[in-house]
């Protein structure tokens, strides 16, 4: 009869469960690994799964992984430490892939390593290892995109302390939140923030990152007026003469567009690129015309050739200042 693994879906919990099964020599085919992230709604809703400070989790898991691997090695064909480290590094990410079979795949690989295939992690063309590699790549990319595409909006600023609370709504392809929580905590330590995703939430209170496995659906967070400046920047930093929509979409796939403020203006930018670029090509000035423009810009526009910069009064702007810019 199949045994059901009891764990919360985190890498640390999977590794603990794996250690137990291996010690009892449970065959990979005898275990049913549920997917706690795909659970029935309501089972763990709102339950606090892990409330330890993020760095502590990391230290603790590393230590436990090392001790577990030592006990596992006993009495089985020698599996090198480097091989353990390699598979654990992979598992740390693969555990957060959106594939229900991920836990059983990882267990099977570890089982095979212990049962006559200690070099399995070097067989990059083995079917199981290829799946592990591929899923690892997918989660790695997804985590990287989470670091890139999470967009915070200012929700609240404490009038007394000045402490700012930001929130973001992000829709990843996998479950990368636990892999990027430390990054956000380190980068935005001075702020308070919450990242909502459809499957889990991470919250930083200034001390700890707390993860909640709860389903949420947020269609709109409140407006943030800095966003309009961001859109201005985004539409002016791109060169319409080099339009390359394919390259843009390869790196910024459409499913992320719903949570990216700049995606709203993308269609307009693409559409107007051709006319903006041909407008550039229309203006060709002869050197004589350009010299005239240059001369006008220098103070005392009567001169026909630009004076050398050194000859000018260095305390004053050498060109006629724009009236609006006088006091900036």
């Amino acid at each position: 009869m199949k045994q059901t693994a009891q764990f919360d879906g985190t890498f640390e919990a999977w590794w603990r469960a794996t250690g137990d099964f291996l010690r009892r020599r449970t065959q990979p085919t005898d275990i049913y690994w549920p997917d706690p992230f795909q659970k029935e709604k309501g089972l763990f809703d709102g339950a606090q799964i892990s409330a330890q400070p993020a760095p502590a989790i990391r230290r603790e898991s590393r230590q436990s992984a090392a001790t577990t691997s030592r006990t596992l090695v006993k009495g089985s064909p020698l599996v090198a430490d480097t091989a353990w480290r390699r598979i654990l590094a992979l598992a740390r990410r693969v555990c957060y892939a959106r594939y229900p079979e991920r836990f059983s795949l990882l267990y099977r690989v570890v089982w095979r390593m212990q049962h006559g295939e200690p070099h399995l992690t070097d067989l990059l063309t083995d079917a199981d290892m290829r799946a592990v590699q591929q899923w690892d790549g997918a989660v790695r990319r997804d985590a990287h995109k989470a670091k890139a595409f999470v967009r915070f909006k200012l929700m609240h600023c404490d009038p007394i302390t000045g402490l700012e609370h930001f929130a973001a709504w992000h829709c990843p392809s996998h479950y990368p939140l636990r892999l990027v929580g430390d990054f956000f905590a380190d980068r935005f330590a001075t702020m308070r923030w919450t990242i909502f995703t459809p499957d889990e939430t991470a919250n930083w209170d200034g001390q700890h990152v707390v993860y909640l496995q709860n389903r949420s659906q947020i269609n709109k967070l409140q407006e943030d007026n800095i966003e309009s400046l961001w859109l201005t920047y985004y539409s002016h930093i791109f060169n319409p003469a080099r339009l390359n929509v394919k390259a843009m979409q390869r790196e910024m796939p459409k499913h992320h567009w719903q949570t990216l403020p700049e995606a709203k203006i993308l269609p307009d930018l693409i559409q107007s690129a051709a006319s903006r670029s041909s407008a550039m090509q229309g203006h060709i000035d002869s050197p004589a015309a350009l010299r005239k423009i240059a001369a006008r810009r220098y103070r005392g526009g009567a001169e026909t050739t630009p004076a050398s910069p050194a000859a000018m009064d260095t305390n004053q702007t050498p060109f006629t200042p724009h009236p609006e810019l006088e006091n900036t």
Partner: protein
Amino acid sequence: MSLVDISVKLAILADAAKYDASCASSGAKRKGNGKLGNATGVGICHSYTPDGRCVSLLKILLTNFCIFDCVYCVNRISSNTQRARFTPEEIADLTIQFYKRNYIEGLFLSSGIIQSPDYTMEQLVRAAQLLREVHQFNGYIHLKVVPGAAPNLIELAGRYADRLSANIELPTPVDLSQLAPEKSFEQITSAMGNIADKIQIRRRSPTVIRNPEQTLALPSVEARTPVSGKLNRFAPAGQSTQMIVGATPSSDVTILETARDLYNRYQLRRVYYSAYSLIPHHDSRLPGIAPPLLREHRLYQADWLLRFYGFDLSEIASATENGQLHADLDPKLAWALRHPARFPIDINRAPRHELLRIPGLGARNVDRIIRMRRISKLRLADLIALKVPLKRARPFVITADYHPSISELDRLSTARSRPVQQTLFDVAPFHADKRRS
């Protein structure tokens, strides 16, 4: 300043900055330490614009007013473009606001030359100083170095910035004197030399992160802190430069020669090749049409071969036509076709530097192959599993189950080695901007 005013200026000064290809935010690594911002060592592209380029930094000019008249530049004094100027305070505020919303990794600040190189550099340094000392900003800062600025200003710039760059602009001194009469190769390379020296000194002795100073006067510019006598930090992410391609007739080999010399002399992290782009109100001395973006791509490929694949410039030059890289062959394949005697190479036995010569095989896959072949002999199927483009690589490799016939390589070299002149109207299917350092 209202948001609207800022927005107007931002539009002008972002427009003016977009011709600088660099947007890399990599190379510096430090923890946040409770401040706002950190640097992870690998750059994060926070967004992509419709030209496929990544946005990782707030890339703006302090001002696009400029007293220089560089023909290729949209901000030259003789250009009829709209002008604006930010204050260092506005730039610092904008950077912080964008950073907190996770739009950017930091700031890349450049400027037109106003009044004098020293005055301009001082303004750039001031913005960086405000970010570091007033806002306690710990994210990435890339400052443009104005050639001709005083060495003490460069010292300060390096203290606040992660990366510094002085643009070489054009491939040869002659090109530069024709299109940028106020600039000189010598002045630009001497700024690079100055930066390289300062970075070199830090490699040899320990540096400290400067104590935050509350004063807004520019602090002392001594390289050592008065307290510990240790060196202040200086541009931990090194320096880079940019060269405009296609504005002058200089060939690819000339461009690569200059790049190689710069890499060797000044230990640059990156040379950016920027295909000359048509600018509004452009000068009739410039070509009326931009070079194909494919040319940029081929230059980056050749640059990579020089730096990471053990190629010598003479080897790359041996596979060019009149000094131009092939349009329809990547430089490694072009070289391989010219040197059939070096092939086929045995995947299961050849040393790393030979594997790197195989067309279609990247450094990453080479390392994977070396790891895998310790366990078992590799077959063609293994290469497919590694996603090696077999069409390109197959005639050049021996695997456990495959040995190419000599005629196969012969056929390939006669069929493909006839050079096709690249026309100006080629549409570039490739894109090179994601390569960062």
